[in-house]
């Protein structure tokens, strides 16, 4: 079935040129559970776009709708200007996917994993083998080429999955927690590779629980919670908007809390500290030291983690 708006976009309504993904009131229900609750966002060509959020926020569900493997239950979602419901094959042809859960094929070697995956895209054998060698080299796995999957370390498997996602030279790369469980060296290596891919003009969408990773990599990001998008923006803008430039931390005592209450600043209390959000850390620290009966006081630059905790709350989620 095609509808008229699949064929023609009136300029004033169609996606802005350069928007690779456009979601409008996108919704996903599993029975009674609303995993993604009418979210709207757009990803521009050539950017690294991040999805952050606590466990169960709906990140993976959103990624799967973009990948055309999980049908949406409401709203609209276009990738490369095409409807995910009507053009899954065309969209998937230009998509690279790094799933949250490793699903390399344990019957085969690293090299064969790439060539067999290439076959799924209909890439001719000779070309597939050349590309597989290039990608193994790109992810610094050329020595592991003949190894079966179970002999690879977690970091190598993750790198191999990224290599596999690149086999069809995708224009858009979806990475669901690409650096999950990796050591700092491996994470730095992957960050470098992702930036190199961006520099080549690719668009990247990633989810992560590492906020430093998001702050370093993402041009723009959203923070999701319980299926909804809470905020959207560049990491710096979000920090500035929601927290300020700095954080002053004081030991949590009734005196300190009472004293800060009178200062007219924005703050949050955690189990053992009070966090004051400010753009003038020196003033806040001075007031604290002068006017309050205080314990330890520290000041530090605000980070994305502060935004994340402020917006999604501190208690552990299920």
């Amino acid at each position, binding site marked *: 079935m095609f509808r008229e708006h699949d064929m023609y976009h009136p300029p004033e309504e169609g996606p802005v040129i350069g928007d690779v993904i456009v979601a409008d009131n996108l919704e996903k229900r599993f029975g009674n559970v609303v995993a993604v609750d009418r979210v709207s966002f757009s990803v521009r060509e050539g950017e690294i776009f991040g999805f952050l959020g606590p466990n169960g926020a709906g990140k993976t569900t959103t990624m799967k709708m973009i990948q055309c493997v999980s*049908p949406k239950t409401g709203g609209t979602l276009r990738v490369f200007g095409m409807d995910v419901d009507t053009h899954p*094959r065309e969209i998937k042809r230009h998509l690279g996917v790094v799933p949250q859960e490793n699903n390399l094929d*344990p019957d085969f070697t690293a090299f064969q994993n790439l060539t067999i995956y290439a076959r799924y895209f209909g890439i001719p054998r000779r070309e597939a083998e050349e590309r597989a060698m290039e990608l193994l080299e790109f992810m610094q796995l050329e020595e592991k080429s003949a190894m079966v999957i179970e002999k690879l370390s977690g970091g190598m498997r993750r790198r191999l999955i990224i290599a596999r996602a690149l086999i069809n030279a995708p224009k858009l790369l979806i990475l669901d927690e690409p650096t999950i469980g990796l050591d700092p060296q491996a994470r730095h290596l992957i960050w470098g590779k992702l930036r190199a891919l961006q520099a080549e003009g690719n668009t990247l969408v990633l989810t992560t629980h590492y906020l430093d990773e998001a702050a370093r990599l993402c041009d723009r990001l959203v923070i999701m919670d319980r299926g909804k998008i809470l905020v959207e923006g560049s990491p710096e803008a979000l920090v500035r908007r929601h927290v300020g430039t700095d954080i002053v931390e004081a030991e949590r005592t009734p005196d300190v809390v009472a004293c800060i209450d009178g200062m007219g600043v924005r703050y949050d209390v955690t189990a053992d500290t009070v966090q004051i959000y400010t753009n003038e850390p020196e003033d806040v620290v001075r007031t604290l030291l002068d006017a309050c009966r205080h314990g330890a006081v520290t000041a530090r630059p605000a980070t994305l983690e502060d935004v994340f905790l402020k917006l999604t709350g501190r208690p552990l989620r299920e």
Partner: protein
Amino acid sequence: MGRFAAAGITCSVWRVWRRNWDAFVKTYQVNFIPPFVEPFLYLLALGFGLGTYIETIDGVSYPRFIAPALISVSVMYSAFFECTYSSFVRMYYRKTFDAIIATPIGIEEVIAGEILWGATRALIYAALMLPVLVAFGVVDLPVSVLVVPFAFLAGLLFASIGMCFTAITPSIDALNYPSFLFITPMFLFSGTFFPLSLLPPIVQYIALAVLPLTHVVSVNRAITLTAFSPILYFDLIWIGAVTLVLFLLSIRLMRRRLIA
């Protein structure tokens, strides 16, 4: 995407098939031994051991009577187990289906490819068993060569049955139920080791209606004994129709299971 289960099946099914073929060839030593050994064991124990107490069945020596059943049973086992336990491992533990549907290949094609592969395995087993049976002189040549292409059709039937169970099983252990409650009785009561006609008529009708193996044995026996009769049309139509229905059903059930 169409409502019809088979809509959206393209030639990419062969890419899914090819993945399984590649994995099979890598471990060919373990894969090629059983079809050689199995007919030996059965023929020695049942055909020439137990069979010495049995003169003939409808004028046929006992080893010649069971030879087509051995092929049929092997076809059933290889296709059914491939599309139950093996497919379940690929689907559930290894997430291989998830990996494939992230490419332009759809879930319908993955399932169709798995079923075609299960049927191919049945064909390979039949092709490997045949020389052994020929060596024992218990099948007619050259007409018995027909059991090989027929193994593919029968394989499609048992692969589709297996895939339906795989689509609805809650766990790999629960696959033991169809194995013991469906496959094992079929192994015994499908005219395999004694003629169906020994059973009470009502049981015969039930066997013909719900035990697919009866029709497969019937066709294979006609081939290896060169004893064709019009009953074969009924067997072939039954097999074809049930295969088609279960093939489409398995795809539909798998879609429901995997595409949440």
